[in-house]
């Protein structure tokens, strides 16, 4: 529904005038936004086009479900297929090995037949009054397919990406294991960014050579008077694991995976660092890229950073994806043992993130759910969309549905579907669907109905 929603804005008629992108993998959206694909066609459709360039996307992870890795892989593969520079930081010592697990795009012939099939299937399963929406989306996607380079591919999770994509020179891998602090990682990102072609629109930043150095300068200078707290070095016990994949149009995507062992006492400082880090990134990326893409865009890059989690709560993480940037940070499992600023950081991150997603596991053989949801057996997990980017607009986007099931089609490609709930017990079904998303709103106002 997001697609039709954005198109129904008062500015929709300009969309047809929008120049067709010269660069594969880039799509123009309403309000002067530019999208890059998430690598999952359904997710692009849900989000109204993909991840906006220069936005921060965060995926909150579930303890029992590694589905964030599916999102990450598709995201990175899509960037590589479009020949976008990629910076990938990994928790492992050999981050390059992860590239071997990336999925390969499905050939477009297959693609078409599959789509046709999906449509029919949907037609059967979905009530007739909703069919018009599907028709709309279908059109939308057909239109994109006419262009030679596809904006979004479907990926076959069982076949590894072809070697020539992976061996490209524009891929940088960083292992953040054992890295003493985040600044080295930031430097690495800035070198990566410096390699991206620059355009005249970026000249306002000329005094700073790269956004990342701008961020450093910013942090050093602006608040140095306030630095009664010296910037705490991260404890050596801390292992930062970072995965970075970059794709952008002079913008970028970033995954951070981080951190194994933070000593309890240093957790506070650590979290402030991490949040500040995200804040600086948001600024440098957001302010240098997003507003200026009225101009021409020459290339796109993706940075993916994966996971920042502390030992106290290493079982529950979230990932933050930054316009292709994923951070994974901790979200405490057991509140009693985890200092509260961890939670505080979680909400700060949620505010920082432009797009907020979360993945969840599906409990095995839940009798109630089996009755409630059609196609329960095929589901791999659940994806929640908590927040959709509001770039250059004040109108919030409300999706028809916020919970989607992640399915594997023919055990190969990822598909997201609305939960089709059996109409018997709507109340419990919907409460399941929204559980955990809007729990903050329990306060009752004065005039409630």
């Amino acid at each position, binding site marked *: 529904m997001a697609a039709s929603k954005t198109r129904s804005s008062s500015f929709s008629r300009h969309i047809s005038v929008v120049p067709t992108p010269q660069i594969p993998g880039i799509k123009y959206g309403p309000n002067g936004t530019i999208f890059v694909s998430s690598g999952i066609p359904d997710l692009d459709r849900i989000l109204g086009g993909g991840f906006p360039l220069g936005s921060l996307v965060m995926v909150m992870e579930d303890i029992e479900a590694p589905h964030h890795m599916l999102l990450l892989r598709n995201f990175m593969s899509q960037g590589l297929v479009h020949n976008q520079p990629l910076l990938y930081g990994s928790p492992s010592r050999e981050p390059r090995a992860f590239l071997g697990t990336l999925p390969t795009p499905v050939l477009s012939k297959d693609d078409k037949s599959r789509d046709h099939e999906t449509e029919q299937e949907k037609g059967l399963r979905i009530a007739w009054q909703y069919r018009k929406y599907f028709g709309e989306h279908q059109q939308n996607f057909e239109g994109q397919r006419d262009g030679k380079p596809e904006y979004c591919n479907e990926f076959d999770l069982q076949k590894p990406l072809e070697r020539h994509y992976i061996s490209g020179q524009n891929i940088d891998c960083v292992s953040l294991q054992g890295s003493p602090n985040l600044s080295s990682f930031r430097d690495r990102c800035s070198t990566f960014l410096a390699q991206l072609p620059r355009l005249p629109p970026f000249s306002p930043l000329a005094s700073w050579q790269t956004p990342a150095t701008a961020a450093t300068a910013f942090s050093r200078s602006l608040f140095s008077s306030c630095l009664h707290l010296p910037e705490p070095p991260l404890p050596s016990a801390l292992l930062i694991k970072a995965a970075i994949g970059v794709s952008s149009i002079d913008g970028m995507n970033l995954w951070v995976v981080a951190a194994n062992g933070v000593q309890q006492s240093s957790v506070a400082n650590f979290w402030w660092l991490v949040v500040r880090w995200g804040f600086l990134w948001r600024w440098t990326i957001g302010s240098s890229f997003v507003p200026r893409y009225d101009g021409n865009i020459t290339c796109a890059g993706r940075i993916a950073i994966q996971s920042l989690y502390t030992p106290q709560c290493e079982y529950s993480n979230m990932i933050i994806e930054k316009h292709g940037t994923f951070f994974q940070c901790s979200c405490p499992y057991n509140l009693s043992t985890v200092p509260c600023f961890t939670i*505080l950081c979680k909400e700060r991150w949620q505010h920082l993130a432009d797009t907020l997603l979360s993945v969840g596991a599906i409990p095995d053989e839940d009798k109630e759910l089996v009755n409630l949801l059609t196609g329960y057996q095929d589901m791999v997990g659940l994806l929640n969309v908590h927040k959709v980017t509001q770039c250059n607009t004040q109108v919030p986007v409300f999706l028809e549905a916020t919970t989607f099931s992640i399915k594997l089609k023919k055990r190969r490609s990822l598909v997201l579907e609305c939960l089709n709930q059996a109409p018997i017990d709507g109340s419990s079904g919907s409460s399941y669907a929204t559980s955990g998303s809007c729990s903050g709103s329990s306060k009752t106002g004065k005039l409630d109905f």
Partner: protein
Amino acid sequence: MDRSPNLLDQALGLHDGESTWSGRVVLIEDCVETSAAFVLHHLVKGFLSPLSSSAIIFVAFAQPFSHYDRILRKMGCNLVVQKDNKRFIFLDMLTLECPGENQKSVEASLLPGGSRSITILIDDISLMEVAVKGSSSHVLDFLHYCRTLTTEFGCSLVVLNHEDIYSSIERPTLILQIEYLAEVIIKAEPLVTGLATDVHGQLTVINKGNSDGLSLQNKMCNFHFRVRENSVEYFYPGSRT
């Protein structure tokens, strides 16, 4: 441009002229589910309207200038022109290089203001807190500084913060202090029944300032809103068909 007062203006006491506005501290609180950024936009537009002569100092942590520019343009207010007229002073916190610049640039922007009423808007405080590495006392210092301006120069101060960030902290000093300082608190919350496409949330306006000296009770209003590209609709619950 419609200047007919809407529910928000009425609740803020903006409908009967600008005079009542000066010297106030306003806190806007929102949460992840419901953003209150539109209230800021609404206020910016109101202050920059041709009818008033007030100026704005906008301290931006959350979004770049182009974001605000595009939004306000849709609302019929050209920020670039207002910037040239020195009525809209945008402090992009990324570009400030000197320590303490924050305070200085606010001061500097105040000087040529003369008798005009000036409003300082901060979007948003929680990011300022992040920028000073979590030292909320520094943020409070700055806020107190701004507050002295409100009494000395008749400035007003509008601050945006995210309420839910502090919900899990035991002693959320910062938000409590700001809530204490503020004369008007505007809270944006999702509907208790969940989000809908035609009602985007509810606003609660708590007006602590009892300028008439008669009513000791806080005035409190609650209404629903729906955000559009160029305006926001405010209405009482159930008043729409």
